[in-house]
């Protein structure tokens, strides 16, 4: 019994430590030299977002050629720049998103002579996935399963919040549609009124003109 429990704690410790192992495989895309590719993600306000990018070395043994450099720019939908790096092979960014909306990460490949396509690995996480679980794991003896369940609890909370957000958006859209509907009704009455008044004005003006000319 005793031995098994000790073995268990060794297992738990090792596993908890290696829980922090993050996979290196990410979303991957190609970039032609001289071109820019932008990837956008919709991020809620007050959420953490973490991104990591690197150029993939397709030739295993040789180092990356110097001409393979990219410039990266991360901007919010209002135009504020949150991350900016020029002529790098790899990098990462992390920031707290105060504004909600579409954040764009734009990758530009420097123009180089042998125009080969650069492959970039890009990992962008935000919200629950970006949360740093290392701090939670280190506090006391947090069991492995407890950590997993904590993660899932956070995921469920975020799903719940997202539901509220979708409900609000639907409410806004409903109001938008109702107002468009009533605007259309008003505008069609107004257009009838405008055309009748224009015709009336025309008639009155021409009548007075012909009376002045003593033709009527």
């Amino acid at each position, binding site marked *: 019994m005793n031995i098994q429990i000790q073995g268990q704690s*060794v297992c738990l410790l090792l596993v908890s430590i290696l829980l922090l192992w993050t996979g290196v495989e990410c979303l991957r895309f190609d970039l032609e030299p001289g071109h820019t590719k932008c990837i956008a993600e919709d991020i809620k306000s007050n959420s953490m977002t973490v991104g990591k990018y690197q150029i993939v070395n397709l030739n295993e043994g040789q180092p990356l050629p110097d001409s393979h450099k990219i410039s990266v720019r991360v901007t919010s939908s209002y135009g504020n720049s949150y991350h900016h790096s020029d002529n790098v092979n790899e990098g990462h960014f992390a920031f707290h998103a105060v504004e909600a909306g579409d954040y764009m990460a734009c990758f530009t490949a420097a123009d180089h002579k042998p125009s080969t396509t650069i492959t970039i690995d890009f990992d962008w996480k935000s919200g629950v996935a970006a949360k740093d679980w290392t701090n939670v794991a280190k506090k006391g003896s947090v069991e492995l399963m407890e950590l997993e369940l904590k993660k899932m609890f956070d995921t469920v909370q975020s799903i719940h919040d997202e539901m509220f957000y979708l409900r609000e958006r639907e409410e806004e859209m409903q109001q938008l549609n109702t107002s468009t509907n009533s605007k259309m009704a008003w505008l069609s009455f107004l257009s009838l009124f405008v055309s009748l008044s224009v015709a009336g004005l025309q008639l009155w003006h021409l009548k007075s003109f012909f009376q002045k000319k003593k033709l009527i």
Partner: protein
Amino acid sequence: MDSRGRVIGCGGAANAALVLLLLSMLSRMSALSVTVSDVECVYEYVFYDGDTVSGNFVVDDQAYWSSDHSGVDFTVTAPGGSTVHTLKGTSGDKFEFKAPANGMYKFCFHNPSSTPETVSFNIHTGHIPSEHDLAKDGLSDPFVLFCINIWTPINVKIAELREALETVTLEQRYLKARDARHRHTNESTRRRVIFYTVGEYLLLALVSGLQVVLIRRLFSKSVAYNRV
């Protein structure tokens, strides 16, 4: 001796548990949007064959002239080169398939029309660990397996639960993207209603003013004296 041997034995079990845990963590989701001018491809790595790859995408073509709703073509290519999944001319759909092999999968969007369109996509590769994974990695020591068995069923259940939650999250993002597209259409309708109507009034006033001016010229003194 004996107890130490046992502890080391369970240390081996720790490795196996680790492997199992890492396997259960190898589920990934990417939720992004790109602008597709002609062809845009993204690659995603699938770790084990038999994994379920699920996802969805929504096309937001900002061109609201009704002739151009052709959507995009979507193709998934397995690492061997074979096409696993194809969708033609859709403006958004869900997809799910079992990965026949592990490796790098290619997800391509092809835009047949000339206007660039924005595609929001989510791709999720999930893995549920099982004892077969352990056997594959060559861990078949009975004592190790005994050590592992105290956890495996719960780990599998937790992995299944996590997969279910990821499915819900995927669905939510799909709904959100569709809602965003719907909203764009509605806002464009509203703008059109207002601008076109006001433009119509101005045009009407202009045309009637032009009419009056022409009629006045027709009846002006220099012309009318001889004619009327």
